[in-house]
Every structure is written in structure tokens, then in C-alpha cells.
């Protein structure tokens, strides 16, 4: 019946489809098994050859064999056909098969639909702006293929169909925006798919050992961004607290996983600083907060050691609001906590004991001992470096007395160890320190290179106190960030910090970088981080805060329906033929005469009509003659000017026979 859909596909369209669909799948090459990518590319190449030589198109048997082969390949790599990667692999195999099979015009739809879906799956892997742009271009081009195939004859140029496609997309854009804003978001996934753990996320984790932080510091990836509701605190106060490490075997430090006590009492000594954090996916479920969090997000809890832990792992970017205090006093130390804070690993050497004993003899109080220890780091030949020389069997001992070159985790762990030897309860804290302020966005960017470790000691009368031994070695670490691009590979080389460089080029470059990050940040904040909470916030901002849950769904349907009706009205308006304004006024004159029973025929000229009117109604003679004369003068003569037009309009408006 539907013969047009069975006509063979023109070659140009075949090429276009092959190219476009390959492009939709292309970014996946990095995501899935290379064998499947290779299989896909081979089939695509084969199909491209077959455009000219149709004899190459596979028959049913061959097609069946290829299908079996494809399925086998996917099954081999992903035995459980479930989860993200397996789904994508299957989709790619399907696309390749459908491409091979493509012959007639009705195949276009299926192919384009697979293409759309393929683009959607890209977003499961990446969420950068460029990918969105890439996907939009491809959506437009794929839509153009649909436009082309719904014509009867191919259009003069595919670009014409592209124009139609862009027009359609531009009209679809408001619908998209409305749906995006109003579609109700859920806070938890509908079901849990098998986790794809292939792709590691970097960040501070539940374990710390010499080298783990310095490894992070080589990455300029963003850890999180912070918008302060008030002033941004100075760098020396920007300690972003994460995991707290208690237990050590001398090399590794780990957190206390069994601790499920609620946070101890806290006396805050300063104002509460409120801010919003947009956190990138990180290992573990620590929410980073400035020093000590007081107001915590809903789905998280504060542990007894003031770790802020989210109830669910942070696999996507999240955004949360925290209130923190910088000056505080923690309460008394419990027995269990004291024990944890004094736990010592095996392998305490006599020289370490000697050192601590010497400090103990020289100082009266714990506080004084702490200062003595810091002095030791400051006065001895310690260096702050990303590439410390390898350490032997007893790293703390070797670091303290032999190599003396290390990164923050070396200082923090060895300092904590020394404190414990001295009998002062202490712990290592991981997190980030500092961060750069983006002058364009007025927010703080904290990168992985800002990862840091420091120590906390418990002093009588003061409670837990932050001590950062790194400051003793490299005070500039606190003032400036490490520039990951300038890290020298030479072992033991001192670290260079980001400096404010002079010169127009330098500043322009910096502006550019800040600008890009500002765009990126708003992208993250408004698009990628648009969540249930933000939706609620936006609804409240719009004054329709009552809209949530099912109400929001109704609202979405209503608003989108309104938008569609508006669009159809616009289209309907454009259905009406645009008329010359003078002609429109003349038509209104004719309509007025219609009341007197004289209907102007479409092909009747103004003079003929006027004489007919005058013949039928001689009493109208003067007015009709005047109006017609003016009309002829304006429309057909050389009397087309503003006053005449105005007068014509006035005459017609007053003409009420």
C-alpha cells in the first residue's frame, strides 16, 4: 500500500546516514570494549563500500551469521546483558546490523531512532558541554534525514531539509526547557543496576599512605566548587575536612568504619559560615565541609569525629548546603576515643622515642610540646615535595631522620605518630585546603591538586585542635595553590606554586581559563546539578512553591500544553496569507458594504465594484467614489504616502453604510 516507503534509499542519503550514525556512536569507542568498536567500524566500512556496489549487500544467510557473530561478541565480553556498558555494546551491535540491512526509505526511521538513543547513552559517560553541542548537531542532522525521507522526491539539497530540521528544533526548544524545569525529579533511582566499577573516580579515600595525596595533587580535576552565601574566608581558614584517620600500621592510615556514634557536643566560638558545595563524584561518601560542619544536609550525618558522611555513595555530582564554624571547642574526650587516638603501630624506633622524650623534657605542657614538634620540622632540613624519594621498611622513621623530603601526608602522619608517642591523642585528617576564587563567578574552585592532609591533637581545655605541620615546612602551601602544570618530575624538586604572572598574554590566558570555568560552573550548577532540591528552590523562587510531587507533574503537563497551544496559534496565524495593509483596509471597506447586500467578487476590480455599488445605492455615491479613488491612487497610482494611507484608513473606518 505504502509504496513510497518501499522505494530504495538514494545514495546520498545512504552516505549521510552511515556518516551520521557512525558519529553518534563514535564517542563510545573509548567506553566499551575495543573489539566491539572494531567490529562496528568494520561493518560500517563494509556498508559504505556497498553503497556503490549493491552486490555486496548481504543476503539473508549472511545477515543471520553476522547477527549471530555480533551477539556472540557482546555476550563474550558482557556475559550478563545488563547494566550500562552491556546495553551500549548491544546498542552498537544493533546499529551496525541495522546499517547493514538498510535498503529502503522506511529503514531511515529505525536508524534515526537508534541514533537518538545512542546519543542519550553518551550522556551516561560524559557530561561536558562540548558533548551536548555535538549531540545537538547530530540530532539536527538526524532529524533532517527524517524530513528528507518524508518527502516524496528527494529535495534539491540536503541542507534544505537541515533548515527545516533546525526550524523544528528551535520550536521544540521552549517545550524542552519547560519540561526540563517542571518535570518532577526523584531523589533516588527507580532501581539499582549492577554497578559499573570500571571507571575509577579520584579523590581522597578512606585510606591514606605516603604518596596517596601527592598522587592526587598531580590532577587538576575539579573536586568541588563552593558558593559562599557571605564573604569567602581567607585561605588559611579554608580547610575542607573529609575523612578522619585513626588506625595505622605504620604505613597506611585508615578511618574507623565501625564508629556510628553521633557527633559530640561542640561549643562554637565564632559565626556560622553558610555555603553551597557542588561535589564531583568521589570515592566514599564524605561530604567536604569547611572545618567543622554545624548545619548539615538532610541525607547525611555527622559522626563523633565530625566526619560528614552521606547516606548513599556519591556517584553523581551532588550539591548540598552546609553551615560551618571555624572557631570551636569540642567537648571531653571519651575513653574509647582516647584509646583510638593513642594507638601506635609496631616499629617505633628508639630514635623516635628519643626525640619525643627530649621534647617532653623541654616542655611543661602538651601545647608546648606541639610547638616543639613543629619547630623541629621548621628547623631541620625538611623539604616539601611531590616526588619524595622511596621509603624503606619503616617509612615514618626513615622520613623523619633520613630522607626528610615529603608531601603533606608524610608530615601529617609522622607528626601524628610523634604526638601519640608523646601521649597526646591525635588523628590525621584528609581533605582539601585552599582553593582558587574565580573572579568571574565569585565562587571557589577546589581541585584535586588542593588535596591535603593535616593532624588534629586533643589538648586539655581546648579539645581537638587542628595542627598543620606542612605550614612549618612550606608556609606558602597555604597561601597559594599548587600549579599541577608546573610540577617537576625530578625527585625531590621543590614544588612551584601558582603565581600571578605579569604580561598581557598571561592575564588574557588566565581570563580565558576563568571564563571557561565560569561557564562550566554554571553548567554544573544549573543543568547537571538540577535536582529535586533545586527544583523545589526554583519553584519557591517562582512563587509556586506549592507545586511539588504530583502537583508538579500536573503543572508540567498544563504549562507544556499551553506552550503547544501557543505554538499552534503562531502556526495558524502564519497560515493566513499576509496582505498588503492598504488592501486589508480595502477588504474591510468591502465587508462594510456586504451589510448592504453587495458582495465584491474576488476578481472584481475596485472601479467595477464601485460603479456597481453606486448603481445599486446612488446615495453612497460620493463616499464610495472618494474611498475607491483614494484606494486606486494609493494601490495602483503614485499617491502612496503616509497621509493618504492615514486618510484612507480614516475614511473607511467612518464608512458605515
Amino acid at each position: 500500500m505504502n509504496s513510497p516507503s518501499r522505494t530504495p534509499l538514494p545514495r546520498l542519503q545512504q552516505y549521510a546516514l552511515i556518516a551520521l550514525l557512525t558519529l553518534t556512536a563514535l564517542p563510545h569507542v573509548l567506553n566499551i570494549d575495543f573489539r566491539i568498536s572494531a567490529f562496528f567500524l568494520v561493518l560500517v566500512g563494509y556498508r559504505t563500500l556497498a553503497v556503490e556496489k549493491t552486490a555486496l549487500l548481504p543476503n539473508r544467510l549472511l545477515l543471520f551469521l553476522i547477527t549471530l557473530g555480533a551477539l556472540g561478541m557482546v555476550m563474550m565480553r558482557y556475559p550478563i546483558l545488563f547494566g550500562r556498558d552491556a546495553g551500549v555494546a548491544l546498542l552498537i551491535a544493533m546499529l551496525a546490523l541495522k546499517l547493514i540491512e538498510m535498503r529502503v526509505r522506511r529503514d531511515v526511521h529505525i536508524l534515526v531512532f537508534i541514533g537518538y538513543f545512542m546519543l542519550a547513552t553518551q550522556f551516561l559517560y560524559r557530561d561536558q558541554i562540548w558533548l551536548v553541542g555535538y549531540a545537538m548537531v547530530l540530532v539536527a542532522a538526524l532529524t533532517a534525514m527524517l524530513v528528507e525521507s518524508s518527502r516524496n522526491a528527494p529535495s534539491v539539497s540536503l541542507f534544505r531539509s537541515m533548515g527545516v530540521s533546525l526550524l523544528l528544533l528551535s520550536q521544540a526548544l521552549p517545550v524542552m526547557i519547560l519540561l526540563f524545569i517542571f518535570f518532577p525529579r526523584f531523589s533516588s533511582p527507580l532501581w539499582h543496576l549492577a554497578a559499573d566499577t570500571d571507571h575509577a573516580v579520584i579523590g581522597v579515600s578512606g585510606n591514606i599512605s605516603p604518596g596517596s595525596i601527592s598522587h592526587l595533587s598531580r590532577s587538576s580535576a575539579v573536586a568541588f566548587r563552593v558558593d559562599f552565601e557571605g564573604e569567602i574566608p581567607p585561605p588559611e581558614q579554608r580547610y575542607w575536612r573529609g575523612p578522619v584517620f585513626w588506625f595505622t600500621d605504620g604505613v597506611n592510615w585508615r578511618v574507623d568504619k565501625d564508629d556510628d556514634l553521633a557527633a559530640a557536643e561542640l561549643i562554637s566560638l565564632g559565626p556560622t559560615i553558610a555555603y553551597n558545595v557542588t561535589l564531583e563524584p568521589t570515592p566514599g561518601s564524605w561530604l567536604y565541609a569547611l572545618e567543622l560542619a554545624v548545619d548539615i544536609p538532610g541525607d547525611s550525618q555527622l559522626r563523633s569525629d565530625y566526619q560528614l558522611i552521606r547516606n548513599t555513595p556519591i556517584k553523581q555530582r551532588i550539591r548540598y548546603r552546609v553551615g560551618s564554624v571555624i572557631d570551636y571547642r569540642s567537648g571531653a574526650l571519651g575513653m574509647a576515643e582516647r584509646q583510638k587516638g593513642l594507638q601506635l603501630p609496631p616499629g617505633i624506633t628508639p630514635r623516635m622515642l628519643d626525640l619525643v622524650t627530649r621534647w617532653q623534657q623541654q616542655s611543661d605542657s602538651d601545647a608546648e610540646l606541639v610547638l616543639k614538634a613543629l619547630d623541629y620540622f621548621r628547623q631541620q632540613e625538611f623539604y616539601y615535595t611531590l616526588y619524595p624519594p622511596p621509603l624503606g621498611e619503616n617509612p615514618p622513621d626513615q622520613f623523619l631522620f633520613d630522607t626528610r623530603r615529603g608531601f603533606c601526608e608524610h608530615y601529617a602522619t609522622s607528626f601524628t605518630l610523634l604526638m601519640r608517642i608523646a601521649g597526646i591523642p591525635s588523628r590525621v585528617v584528609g581533605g582539601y585546603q585552599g582553593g582558587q576564587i574565580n573572579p568571574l563567578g565569585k565562587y571557589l574552585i577546589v581541585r584535586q591538586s588542593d588535596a591535603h592532609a593535616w593532624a588534629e591533637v586533643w589538648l586539655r581545655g581546648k579539645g581537638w585542635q587542628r595542627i598543620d605541620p606542612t605550614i612549618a615546612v612550606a608556609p606558602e602551601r597555604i597561601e597559594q595553590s599548587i600549579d599541577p602544570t608546573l610540577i617537576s618530575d625530578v625527585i625531590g624538586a621543590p614544588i612551584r606554586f601558582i603565581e600571578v604572572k605579569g604580561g598581557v598574554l598571561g592575564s588574557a590566558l588566565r581570563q580565558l581559563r576563568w571564563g571557561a570555568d565560569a561557564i562550566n560552573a554554571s553548567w554544573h550548577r544549573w543543568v547537571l546539578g538540577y535536582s529535586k532540591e533545586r527544583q523545589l528552590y526554583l519553584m519557591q523562587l517562582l512563587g509556586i512553591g506549592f507545586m511539588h510531587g504530583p502537583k508538579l507533574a500536573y503543572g508540567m503537563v498544563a504549562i507544556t500544553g499551553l506552550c503547544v497551544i501557543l505554538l499552534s496559534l503562531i502556526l495558524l496565524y502564519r497560515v493566513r496569507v499576509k496582505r498588503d495593509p492598504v488592501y486589508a483596509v480595502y477588504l474591510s471597506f468591502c465587508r462594510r458594504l456586504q451589510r448592504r447586500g453587495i458582495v465584491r467578487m474576488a476578481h472584481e476590480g475596485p472601479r467595477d465594484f464601485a460603479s456597481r455599488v453606486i448603481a445599486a445605492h446612488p446615495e453612497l455615491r460620493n463616499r464610495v467614489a472618494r474611498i475607491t479613488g483614494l484606494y486606486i491612487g494609493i494601490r495602483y497610482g503614485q499617491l502612496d504616502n503616509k497621509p493618504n494611507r492615514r486618510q484612507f484608513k480614516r475614511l473607511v473606518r467612518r464608512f458605515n453604510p
Partner: protein
Amino acid sequence: MLRRSGADNHVIMNNILDRLVNEAGTIILGKELALRLALACLLARGHLLIEDLPGVGKTTLAHLLARLLGLNYQRIQFTSDLLPADIVGNTVYNREEGSFNFHPGPVFSQLVLADEINRATPKAQSALLEAMEEQQVTVDGTSYPLPKPFFVIATQNPAHQIGTFPLPESQLDRFLMRVELGYPDSRSERLLLTGHDRRDLLLGLEPCLNQEQLQALQNQVGEVHVSEAVLDYCQALLAFSRSSPRFHRGLSPRAGLALLRSAKAWALLSGRFQLLPEDIQAVLPATVGHRLHSTTDTGADEGATLARFLIESVPIP
């Protein structure tokens, strides 16, 4: 100021045209439309084809026009044995001078009446039609220009009469207009029967125009203002004729030009310097009737029917 004097000029011309139409109306009774069309055709520098039965006044009309416009006039009766030389003239050997002299034929006059043009063989027909097109005659390799203005009124019997050679389509295209005279209405016929012999009246007629005035009038046709709206209408007509299945073939661009030109002449004849859709409608049957063919062969007066259909189908934009 210049414009003013131009306008005055227009007024004078209008008077002349009025007189022309009035004078003609006293001789040819009840043929106002045909007469005006003929005049418009002449002003538009086109040739006229009159198609009708014998005895309805074709010849009188041609004679009248010649007289009124002060043109010299020749009549050629086309017969089946008419030779091209009988129209354009021939070279004769002059024994006394020992040279060939060209004796111009009847075509060398300002107004030529080609009577019953479809009686003659195609060869003879084409001699005249070529002269019309080229505005000159070539005999034995020498070209002789025709006088100016040069205006041909050809008459033709209805095609279905016996013993005729109907003009081919391409030849018909050379005539700007084709008009039909038809029988006079009863009042005019009464006057015709009771009044003087028309030919006698003709002889007593004084020319209304001199050659310069005629030329000026012809030039003014080109100055008639054509607005965008009218051009739109004109194009809509042409487009419709090309798209509608009622027509065997659409109107050519040349037909469009002819339509516009004759409509301008018609507007001028009505004393206007702007073209109205009515002007186009008025000249459309005459200008386009002989260029249109129906897909369903209805034969007689199909041109008029088709023209009416065309007018009624296309709304004025």
C-alpha cells in the same frame, strides 16, 4: 513645473482621444468595445486581427481608423491565388533606363487592411506576417523599410468555413489582439438601416490626429504607471493559465508582455495614467483569446470562454 506641463500635455491628449472615440462612434454604430480595442491596439503599436463573418463592418472599421488617424491606407484582398509579390511588390525591368525598378506593393502604406487573410495560401500569408514582424520588406536581396507607423488590420473568416488556411499558432501570436465584431444591437442596426451610407460618411470625415500626435500618444502608453499590485495580478493570471488543467498550454511571457502593453494603452484611452486590474480584464479576452487553447476541444468561441474563465478564476490580489 516640468511635471505640471506634462500633466497639461496629458489633458490635451485626453481631449484628442475623447474626440477620436466619439467621432468613430458616429460611423460605426454599436461597436464601441471593438472600436476601443482597435484603437488601444494601435496605440500599443500592435497589429489587429478581426475575426468575424463577412458584412459586419470589418472593412469599414479599418477604413475609419485610417481616416481618423490620418494614415494612408491600402487594402489587400487575400485569395487562394494571391502571390507574395502581390503583397510586397516586385522588381520590374525598366527598358528605358536599363535597370530594375522596385514597384512597392500595397504593403507599403501606414495602414494595411489584409482582408480574409486565411483565404490565401500559407506562403502569401507569411509574406505579410514577416513584413509585420520585421517592419521591412526584402525583395531580391534589398531591404525596403516600411513606413511608420505601420499597422496591419487583418480580417479572418471563422476557421470552420470551407476553403480556408487557418493561421498557425505562431503567426497568430504576431497579432497583439484579436477582436470579434459581432452583430450590432437592434437600435444600432435600425440607425444603420435608416441612416446614410457609412462609406459616404467616411469620406466626409476629417482626421483627428496628425502623425506627431499619434507618435506622442504611442509614446505615452509606455509612461502609464504600473504598480506592484497590478504586476502581481498580471503574474497571477499567467501563473494560473500555466497551472490550470483547463488550458492546453499556459500563456507565454510574450503573451504577458502583450497583455500589459495593451492594458496600458487601454488605460490611456480611458484617460488614466495608472493601470488598474480592470484594464487588464478589459483587454484580456482580445489579447489572450487567440493564444489560449482548451484541453477539451470545444471549438467555436473557445478563446472568449477561456478568457472569461481565466478572469473569474484569479482573484485580484
